[in-house]
């Protein structure tokens, strides 16, 4: 994975440099004389959380290796702090001259909305949050429907019963994109496969992402009814789906990270593959674009083409179908197969 990530990031770097070389106006622009002074604000957990924040940190570390002279200052949040302290954190970095400033997580949206207009020459980026916008704000978003399409294809190819499932934390627009992509992927491979869909809570309830017991119950019901592959998009609840899969002797599909490596060792064997969200790639790509002044404001969607979403091969369970999957991935990248975001 480590090597894979490095290769990936390197590939992105090459792609970005190549793209920069093509643009006439970019090559005539005066090169940035001052090396980047990057400010990075984390949400609770910070570097070392083995999840969200660490993924962003990996992207920054990669950039540090490849972008000459780049310096990084990382500032973490304290649990339960008032929102005003997030605003102050972003302000302190901007005031100290850090540029660009990357906010990891949606809880920084109000802080960026307040501070970005006051520092119009500073670049800001926020991961996973589309609602805050401005001429100096870049939203790093992910085409989760494309990655989920591939998960649907895997499920349809691997299912022996012709019956698959989807467990979502809650039916918010964010999670619906996963479901929509998954269903399209399944139908693309085999329109006759039956798809069972369950959401753990109502649309405005985040507790669905922290209820492994509910997820286990929902997944058990699916496996008992004949499903043999279930895709979970339910955060910490996903552990329940993995447990149910282990008991049923069936497959489950992970999300966000390579869960065959990060989940409880006892259930790793049932994880067929995972839909990986490459926050590291998005962060790296953003920094590279700031460095060569190709950065754009507004949403930048990290999709299959940019390597922002991907699938994992850990465990070797999908080695047999990998050529077909890779072909499908190329078809999506070249728009021969269209995936609707829902």
């Amino acid at each position: 994975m480590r090597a894979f990530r490095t290769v990936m990031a390197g590939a992105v770097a090459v792609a970005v440099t190549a793209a920069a070389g093509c643009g006439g106006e970019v090559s005539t622009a005066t090169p940035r004389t001052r090396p980047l002074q990057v400010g990075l604000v984390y949400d609770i957990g910070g570097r070392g959380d083995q999840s969200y924040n660490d993924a962003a940190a990996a992207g920054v570390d990669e950039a540090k290796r490849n972008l000459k002279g780049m310096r990084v200052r990382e500032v973490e949040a304290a649990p339960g702090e008032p929102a005003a302290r997030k605003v102050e954190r972003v302000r302190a970095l901007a005031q100290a001259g850090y540029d660009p400033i990357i906010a990891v997580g949606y809880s920084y949206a109000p802080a960026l909305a307040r501070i970005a207009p006051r520092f119009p020459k500073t670049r800001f980026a926020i991961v996973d949050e589309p609602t805050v916008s401005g001429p100096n704000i870049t939203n790093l978003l992910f085409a989760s429907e494309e990655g989920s399409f591939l998960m649907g294809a895997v499920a349809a190819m691997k299912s022996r019963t012709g019956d698959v499932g989807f467990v979502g934390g809650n039916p918010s627009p964010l999670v619906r994109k996963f479901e929509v992509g998954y269903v399209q992927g399944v139908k693309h491979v085999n329109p006759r496969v039956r798809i069972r869909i369950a959401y753990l809570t109502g649309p405005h309830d985040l507790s669905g992402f922290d209820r492994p017991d509910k997820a286990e119950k929902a997944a058990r019901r699916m496996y008992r009814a004949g499903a043999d592959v279930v895709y979970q998009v339910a955060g910490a609840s996903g552990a329940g789906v993995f447990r149910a899969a282990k008991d049923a002797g069936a497959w489950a599909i992970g999300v966000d990270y390579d869960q065959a490596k990060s989940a409880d060792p006892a259930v790793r064997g049932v994880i067929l593959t995972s839909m990986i969200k490459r926050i590291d790639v998005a962060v790296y790509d953003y920094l590279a674009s700031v460095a060569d002044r190709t950065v754009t404001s507004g949403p930048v969607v990290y999709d299959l083409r940019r390597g922002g979403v991907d699938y994992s091969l850990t465990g070797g369970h999908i080695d047999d179908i990998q050529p077909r999957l890779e072909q499908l991935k190329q078809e999506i990248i070249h728009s021969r197969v269209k995936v609707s975001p829902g």
Partner: protein
Amino acid sequence: MNGFLDRVLGRVKLGGWLAVVAPLIAVVFAVLITSVVLLAAGKDPVLAFTTLADYGTQPRSMAMILNTGVMYYISALAVAVGFRMNLFNIGVDGQYRLAAVIAAGLGGAAVVPGVLNIVLVIVVAVVVGALWAAIAGLLRVYRGVSEVISTIMLNAIATGLGSWLVSEHFGVLTGNDLGTRPIPDDAHMPGIPLIAGTPVLVNGFIVVAVLLGIAYWVVLNRTRFGFELRATGKSESAAVASGVSVKKMIVVTMVMSGAVAGLIGMPELLGASYKYSNNFPAGLGFTGIAIALLGRNNPVGMAVGALLWSFLDNSSNQLQLLDISKEIVQIMQGVVVLSVIIAYELVHRYRIVAEQRRVSRELAAPQEAPKAEAAA
């Protein structure tokens, strides 16, 4: 009888110069320990402390420190009310969060306009906090359940109840953030331009906090209820002998503690966030316990403690810019609390020993005199 607990909770007063020496020792001790930790981490303590001093003297930071300090102070008062009677209300945390959720839900619904809405929100918060704390008081009186255990459990229940209320009844989704409907503009607590040189306003609840501090002192020291509360805290059996209903006192004190706790979230709710969401400050009840210990349940001491705590919390961003990890702030806070407890205990012991020496000298003096005469 002066037990350790009595001394820790500030029920035994230090007189004269000793009252000045104890906090001084604590500060010197805390600075020393923190410097050692910083040196061990390979950081420059002088740079760290000058940065802290620099940060703390800017007008903008002062306003921020006051704003956080207001919440910390109210929380410390809520805890201290119980402490003075040997009631350990660990449940201040749950009480203020549940109070804030329900008050935010009602305030967001805007059933009444303007200032009336502010009053409604505050009253609801106070009542919810009081009722939630009353459960623990009643359990203690009628079932003998230790309030330490019951309030910790009630914290967990308040968390569950709060998130259920937000998700099922009050919640609206903004982007990825789930929170209550924002309280309309006409029901916002106005800020005060208290500090010159910064556009940052000081939260209007600073007035409420000061009034609460005064009320705390007056009620405890100048009313019969306060006397009975302190008497019960010092010796339950003595209080019973002098006709105090301890059961009533327990319930009333828990209710008062909870009522004050209900106010903790109000500066944030009515003066900053205007809604209860995932971003609402959490854990303030536990901060209050530390500050009550730090301020030795004294209204002025707790104010100093709250400001110190808030100063350290707020300076975490600046320290991180120096590549000093944010955990240093937590270490400093912990060291300060321990330093205060240890310094006061040392000074108390010094006083006791000094007193014993003085007494034994006085007792010994008349016997020595005739001996001297005999020798002569």
